[in-house]
């Protein structure tokens, strides 16, 4: 047995800290919460407004347009159809709203941070260990601060997803910018590029494949949070999975699980094809 005399708790101080934080900055958290929620609801109502067949058509057309593979495009477009067959359409849309909201926020925060990380050494020195930490931390842990500050529901789900999904887009943006060949940068400088022109005309376009790979990974990580974030009250496919687990309803869980996988496959293919289109042309 671990001796009683060494026992020491931080739970109390942490709770106090959070309580004080909420007391002092309550309105700030409220307005953040409110902003995220209204954004999320906006995304959700747009997504719900689009008829189901339009999704299938868009998936098919995007896939066809970028890959020119007929069978692959048909298969890809049939995946959302199967989700509908399982009766999980509304839930999928709900999950998708959380994912899209979180990913958009991750891009708004992550892209500039990635650029800063590539441009300024001190920023990189601070961010790198933080990102390492964020990625090695078990994803459940993110639920705790999100819940502490925002309670239960969609908003903390978006925040937990955001924090979990943020590192790849920052990292791959910075990586892409740093991998731009030195001779190309040097030539741009020699012709009188300002730092901003260098970024806009040379570094960002050349980093684009890497940046989009980051967007892809971020989206995939956001999807991976679907089930976990439903533990703090996000509705959608994750909730369905959780319910099935609780009721030991394997079949229902299988349907919900497959729907998450299908969603992931569709989003993965589409974002990857987008990334390919940004590769520098070979001809």
């Amino acid at each position, binding site marked *: 047995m671990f001796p009683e005399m060494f026992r020491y708790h931080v739970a109390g101080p942490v709770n106090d800290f959070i309580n004080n934080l909420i007391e002092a900055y309550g309105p700030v958290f409220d307005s953040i919460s409110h902003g995220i929620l209204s954004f999320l609801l906006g995304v959700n109502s747009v997504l719900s407004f689009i008829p189901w067949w339009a999704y299938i058509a868009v998936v098919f057309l995007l896939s066809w347009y970028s890959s020119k593979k007929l069978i692959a495009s048909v298969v890809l477009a049939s995946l959302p159809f199967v989700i509908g067959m399982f009766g999980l359409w509304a839930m999928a849309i709900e999950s998708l709203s959380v994912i899209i909201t979180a990913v958009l926020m991750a891009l708004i925060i992550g892209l500039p941070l990635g650029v800063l990380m590539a441009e300024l050494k001190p920023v990189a020195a601070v961010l790198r260990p933080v990102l390492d930490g964020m990625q090695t931390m078990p994803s459940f842990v993110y639920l705790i601060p999100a819940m502490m500050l925002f309670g239960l529901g969609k908003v903390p789900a978006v925040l937990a997803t955001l924090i979990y999904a943020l590192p790849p887009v920052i990292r791959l943006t910075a990586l892409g910018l740093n991998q731009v060949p030195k001779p190309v940068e040097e030539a741009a400088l*020699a*012709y*009188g590029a300002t730092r901003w022109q260098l970024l806009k*005309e040379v570094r960002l376009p050349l980093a684009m494949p890497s940046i989009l790979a980051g967007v892809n990974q971020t989206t995939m990580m956001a999807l991976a949070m679907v089930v976990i974030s439903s533990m703090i009250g996000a509705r959608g496919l994750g909730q369905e999975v959780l319910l099935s687990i609780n009721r030991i309803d394997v079949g229902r869980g299988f349907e919900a699980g497959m729907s998450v996988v299908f969603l992931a496959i569709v989003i993965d293919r589409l974002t990857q094809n987008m990334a390919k289109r940004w590769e*520098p*042309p070979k001809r």
Partner: protein
Amino acid sequence: MDAPQQQDASAGVPGAAAGMEAILIRDLWKIYTRKKGMSVSSSDVENEELVEELDKGEDAVVAMKNVSLEIRQGETFIIMGLSGSGKSTLIRCLLRLVEPTSGDIIINGENVTAMNRRQLVNFRREKIAMVFQHYGLLPHRTVLQNVTFGLKLRGDEKEGRKEKAADALEKVGLKGWEKYYPASLSGGMRQRVGIARALVMDAPILLMDEPFSGLDPLIRRELQDEMIHLQKVMHKTIFFVTHDLSEALRMGDRMAIMKKGEIVQVGSPDEVIANPADDYVSRFVSDEREHMRRAEEVLAKNRAGKEGTPHVS
């Protein structure tokens, strides 16, 4: 330290209006530091012991020592030296892609070393254009967009850009290739794009850092000839770096030979061949002499052969 041997007595007085040098380089030093936080100030270069210590150590590279040169308007000036002798460092200092540790660079009367950021950007946009050994083309832009890149950076009108680019592409023999991407071009063609990109700027000074070194000999020869041909009508001041003496002899009006960061000889190609300043230079030259001797022998043999058997055909 051996002083650079100035064989050319006719070098003009600095600043004299009529014979104003295109490029004036005075006591230029570059010391690269490798260790974090280590810096060398411009006064440090006067401390001979310190420089020697840095030169020996691992933490710094003395890439350029006390270089002074005068390049005249309209001449093709060659910098020659073995790899690692500091040629690229020197040429990059002229537009401050590399910051010199100490010394002055005066180009057409403007003190480049004293320019602030804004002035430097304008100077690079208007007064000087550079061609690189590794081309430095933008892979995501077409040939046309690459050629107009410098014009776009300085904010030229779109219409004028296209016209100028078409003109430059015609000069380098790439008419009809506007829509291709660099990846689909051969090395020689890529460098033609690089040259067109420089010509289109209409800058009085052209910097070329081993522009033809990566090309195979026939293409290299072709581009050298075209460059010579273009220069006959352009009359630009060309600062040309090479490690190839035969290229230097073909292209250069005057040349400087660089060794371990120092200029060891300046003169016309003929003077350098006739009077190599030291062993280092004569090693370059003896190779070239060997080539010439053999060429002459072959020619002589050929001639003798023809005279001996006049009716063989």
